[in-house]
């Protein structure tokens, strides 16, 4: 199977994630869309690794996973504490820092 198809899939997933980040208001969904974008990147890294025949891309994918795991921990904690104080998970409601 042509590895380029995986790249198309990665681009599609990334776009879906990006659009989700831009248009959804629920913080959890936005967060999941960010994860989707990260994993789209991982897929692209692994595909390139395969195409070029070296392992660099796969290693970067592992790094990304670790970073994503850490981000999930911090991000979910923030979302939970925001929800506790404001009783809402909408990102638009957390606009305290605007001028």
């Amino acid at each position, binding site marked *: 199977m042509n590895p380029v198809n995986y790249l198309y899939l990665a681009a599609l997933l990334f776009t879906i994630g990006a659009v989700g980040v*831009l248009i959804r208001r629920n913080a959890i969904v936005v967060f999941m869309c960010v994860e989707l974008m990260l994993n789209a990147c991982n897929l692209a890294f692994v595909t390139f690794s395969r195409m070029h025949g070296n392992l660099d891309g796969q290693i970067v994918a592992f790094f990304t996973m670790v970073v994503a795991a850490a981000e999930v921990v911090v991000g979910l904690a923030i979302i939970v504490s925001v929800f506790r104080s404001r009783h809402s998970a909408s990102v638009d409601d957390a*606009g305290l*820092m*605007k001028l």
Partner: protein
Amino acid sequence: MDNLIALLIAAPLLGAAVLLCGGRRLDKIGHWLGTLLAASSFVIGLVLFADMLGRSADDRAMYQHLFSWIPVGGFQADIAFQLDQLSMTFVLLITGVGTLIHVYSIGYMEHDERRRRFFGYLNLFVAAMLLLVLADNYLLLYFGWEGVGLASYLLIGFWQHKPSAATAAKKAFLVNRVGDIGLSIAIMLMFTTFGTFAFGPVLESAGETSEGKLTAIGLMLLLAACGKSAQVPLQSWLGDAMEGPTPVSALIHAATMVTAGVYLIVRSADIFNAAPDAQLVVTVVGAVTLLFGAIVGCAKDDIKKALAGSTMSQIGYMILAAGLGPIGYAFAIMHLVTHGFFKAGLFLGAGSVMHGMNDEVDMRKYGGLRKYMPVTFVTFGLGYLAIIGFPGLSGFFSKDKIIEAAFAKGGTEGWILGAVTLLGAAITAYYMTRVMLMTFFGEKRWQPDAEGREPHPHESPKSMTIPMVLLAFGSVFAGGVFGIGDRFVTWLEPVTAFEHGHPPISAGAITSATVAVMVIGVGIAYLQYGRRPVPVVAPRGSLLTRAARRDLLQDDFNHAVFVTGGTHLTRSLVYVDHSLVDGVVNGTAAGVGGLSGRLRKLQNGYVRSYAVSMFGGTAVLIAATLLMRAV
């Protein structure tokens, strides 16, 4: 012997420092100390003079290098002195006349409780003036130049409780500043042109420099001379400077400081010799001032202001002679010295008259004083004969030489200058005779003053009359001693090159013409003021008289042109500042403010809109990268 030069300045400087810092405990001896130090400076001057006479004419200049003043790379300013024949002449004049006037002031200022301070200022003046004439470079000369300006300011405004004196002091200072700017520009020009401002190198290399630059330097020096020597167009301060005590008028505003401009021009002879255009302007300034001062002197009823007009006019003669080049320099200095004697004598005489007349200065309220003040009358009379050029007295020798030199200028210029100097001589005879007749002849016209005190004219004390007598001796004999056998010219020749001028008409004819116009001037004055009684209240007079009483409208002119013009200029500048400069600054501020007001709308607090800008930015960057790679 060279090391004595610094002592000349040090003595009066010490006097000034001690008297001005010493406080009241010196009130009793302050005047004696000041006089003693001025006199010691004169004695040192005499010693140096005797030493100088003992050497051959070319070997007479002495130098003393005290210390390096401002050594900065190529800019070398030294405190160094040069005492040549020209400086020597001035040293003797300044310290000699200065000492006499110190002695005179002891009597004149006797009842003034600030007499110690007065002597401190006088000593300061003598020190600064000596520094001016002894400096061996233009920067140090400038230092002395400012010093005499300061002393002049302090002394004109000595009676500072009188608003008129305070104003006159400010006026003198400000007008002098205009001239001082000329001197500072001249020094800067010299530094850029010659790389130095010491007399030696500048004057030696003057001949090899472009004429344009020399003309510029010359004109700037002339501006400086105009300010200090009260020449047109910077003449307006001298009349008001008469607000100062009379000894000050005699020393600073007649005999010494006001002649500093003549010294400057004669000292810079090599520059002027190589710049004929500048020389022409010098003669024109001299000729105009000569007539200007003389006309003003004819109309003034204030005895000191009449003498001030005369001073202006006589310095006009000197400046004119200095503008004639090598045929005139020596005569300019010779007239300067003789003028120093007789004008100081005349001022001291005027001071003596005022002393006896409750400080009245209006000549219309004098009259018939010769019986009450015989010594003053005789000394003033001798000074009078000297200034009008009575044959045999000193003014005759020096002024006649200047008139000859003016004719010897040659061509139409020579005739015009000669005619102007002759006319000036006639007017001089007229206004001086007028002063003489109004003060000492006719019937007495004095009246009780505002407080009802009847004046009791009386002869002044010895401390005042003795200096007047000595100055009268100088007025009578100085001209003969200098003039007969060209002694003075020979003495100065090594410093200021001398050429014999050849007037188009014989010297004898010029001398007879000079005597003739003098007699005419005296005659007219006698018909007007000797034969008829002098009215106590001044008649309205002709248009010219009224203009001359107002100093030929010089203050009105300055007011109209410089004050009103300056006010308009500053107002328009303020307008430009408000509308244009502030407009640009405020406009920028308003523009930035408006722009940031719009930009801050982007900070709307919606995370998603920030994400859009992030994505958009990334997209643009990627697009740009790809585009660059494709190209």
